[in-house]
């Protein structure tokens, strides 16, 4: 698969998803236009709104890049959520410990330790897949649940900070990522994620391992024949994917929450999969798609506050985008109004 952006199909899918979302509103007796207007205002209307949108976009930009990188090697890493949680957890631990370290160093190391945690957590399904043939779709999905309960256990019992909330104590100030648009929660994690998108693009297009990862994903048999080890590069891509997800988790803890709070992720990892696909599995596409999803999340909160439309409308629109993007042939046919199904090439 070449890195190429084809815009119209995705844009059309997004437009259609919003229309269908409005239909849902209409059918359930909510005012569709004012709800959507509130959603857009909540996402872009003010400086704070934009800050919120970017804050929400940050973790899913990380997770979408993570999914993309594994996908490029032919791996369906559905378990981004688990790697994201483990990354967040290890980053929190690192931020809490090592209190003597000075500011940028502590934060950088904490972020890396998050990445390391995610990478290790991705290594399990990678090895299970490559050596035992366990399909990664199911194993990673299961590992996501394991990570959810495991981190929940730790913050409920051994690492619980005093108080009613299941959370760890705060990380040291030296490990925090600075806020860049006060008073919003937007932190340095956002520019890091943006930079990472370009780094991933460069890596895939311009480096030897990136080339090999793409080759292995596009045609494993031909790659093996040419001496490119499918095992090696699938493991590499899997681990790098986990690393990026883990850095994303770390960024969320060090940038937004300052501590690991039980259940802090509303499913950023799952969102990343969808975002990645809506972004046509292109790093730059991921930037736009994560902004769209960030907008839905941030704007959704305002929408709920102003119009009482349940927050989950955002989720419904997201799902519609995913379903419509999944079958590009459907959209193409809607666009060209052809009756017969698309013929495959001969």
């Amino acid at each position, binding site marked *: 698969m070449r890195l190429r952006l084809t815009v119209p199909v995705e844009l059309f899918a997004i437009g259609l998803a919003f229309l269908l979302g409005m239909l849902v509103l209409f059918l359930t007796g909510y005012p569709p236009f004012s709800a959507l207007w509130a959603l857009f205002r909540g996402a872009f209307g003010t400086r704070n709104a934009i800050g919120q949108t970017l804050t929400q976009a940050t973790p899913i930009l990380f997770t979408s890049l993570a999914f993309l990188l594994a996908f490029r090697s032919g791996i369906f890493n559905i378990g981004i959520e688990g790697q994201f949680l483990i990354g967040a957890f290890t980053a929190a631990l690192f931020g809490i410990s090592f209190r003597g370290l000075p500011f940028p160093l502590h934060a950088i190391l904490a972020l890396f330790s998050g990445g390391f945690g995610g990478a290790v957590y991705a290594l399990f399904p990678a090895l*299970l897949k490559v050596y035992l043939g366990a399909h990664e*779709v199911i194993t990673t999905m299961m590992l996501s649940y394991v990570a959810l309960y*495991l981190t929940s256990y730790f913050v409920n019992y051994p690492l619980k900070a005093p108080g009613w909330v299941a959370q760890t104590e705060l990380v040291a100030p030296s490990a925090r990522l600075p806020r860049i648009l006060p008073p919003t929660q937007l932190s340095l994690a956002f520019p890091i994620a943006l930079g990472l998108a370009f780094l991933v693009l460069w890596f895939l297009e311009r480096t030897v391992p990136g080339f090999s990862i793409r080759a292995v994903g596009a045609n494993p048999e031909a790659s093996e024949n040419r001496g490119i080890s499918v095992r090696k590069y699938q493991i590499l891509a899997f681990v790098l994917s986990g690393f990026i997800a883990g850095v994303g988790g770390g960024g969320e803890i060090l940038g937004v929450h300052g501590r690991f709070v039980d259940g802090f992720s509303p499913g950023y990892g799952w969102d990343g999969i969808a975002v990645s696909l809506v972004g046509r599995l292109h790093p730059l596409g991921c930037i736009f798609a994560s902004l769209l999803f960030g907008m839905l999340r941030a704007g959704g909160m305002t929408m709920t506050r102003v119009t009482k439309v*349940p927050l989950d409308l955002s989720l419904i629109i997201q799902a519609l985008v995913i*379903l419509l993007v*999944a079958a590009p*042939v459907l959209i193409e046919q809607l666009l060209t109004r052809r009756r017969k199904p698309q013929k495959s090439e001969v």
Partner: protein
Amino acid sequence: MSLSQIINLSLFQAQLRMATPILLAALGGLLCERVGVVNIGLEGIMLTSAFFGVLVTYFTSSPLLGFLGGLASGFLWGLVIAVLTVRFFGNQIVVGTGVNVFGLGLSAFLSQKIWGSRGASDAVSGFAPLRSDLLARLPYLGPVLNEHTFLVYLAIALVFVLHFFLFATPWGLRLRAVGENPQAADTAGINVFRYKTLGVVAGSLVASLGGVFLSLGHLNFFAWGMTSGRGFIGLAAMIFGKWTPLGCLLSSLLFGFADALQMRLQALGVLPSQIILLIPYLVTILVLSGFVGRAVPPARYEPYRKE
């Protein structure tokens, strides 16, 4: 605390109850996979049907109508998935992900609208357990098999119905052929698209029974994300059961036992709930990692394109 507090006949009764939604998910997944469609949207289908089961019951006070409502939602999902994956060659994993997100979003959205809470619905009257005095007198087996809702018995009956259907009837033969080698089926004059659609719709319908069981046969209300991964565990049970109905029954009983045991341990406060909750997932991973022999699917997971 003695071991008999943990392991007794009511544990096995719970095992059968907890195995039911997993079994229904596994059988649903089985039908889809037998025609070459991986359905990871089972989770979303079950959640949707659990929700609509409660919704219809809430407004009609009839669990039977609720049951039909849940089934109808499963049928609709089946059609959507079949159209997207079979007719328009959509990516099966992506479509499944979309179904799961949609199920979660729609159920919470409507739950908020109707009951003012996205967490849980009001309680409704579900299905009462069936009781047979004759069965009760059977030693050991009696208490285990007795006093379940009809959905439990329906699930077990389905195992044998599907076994018969797949391996004894002409349509089952064709269904298997379509999944394993669509070209061969096509040249034998079988309508590949029709059978693929049939498999996916029937599979989604069966999985939706599992959703209805959770909300009307088990808890009698709808809770946010109440399927809690059972759709995925059902897929694992199907793989563990080597894509056969009888295999699905056995592996579902295994997972059901793990589920029942964790509930029991949790109730007794033996271990923190989080640790117990992750046991079924770990078991699944071990199973999938080939510690019980390699799993080879019976079908090719790709859209069939003529020409």
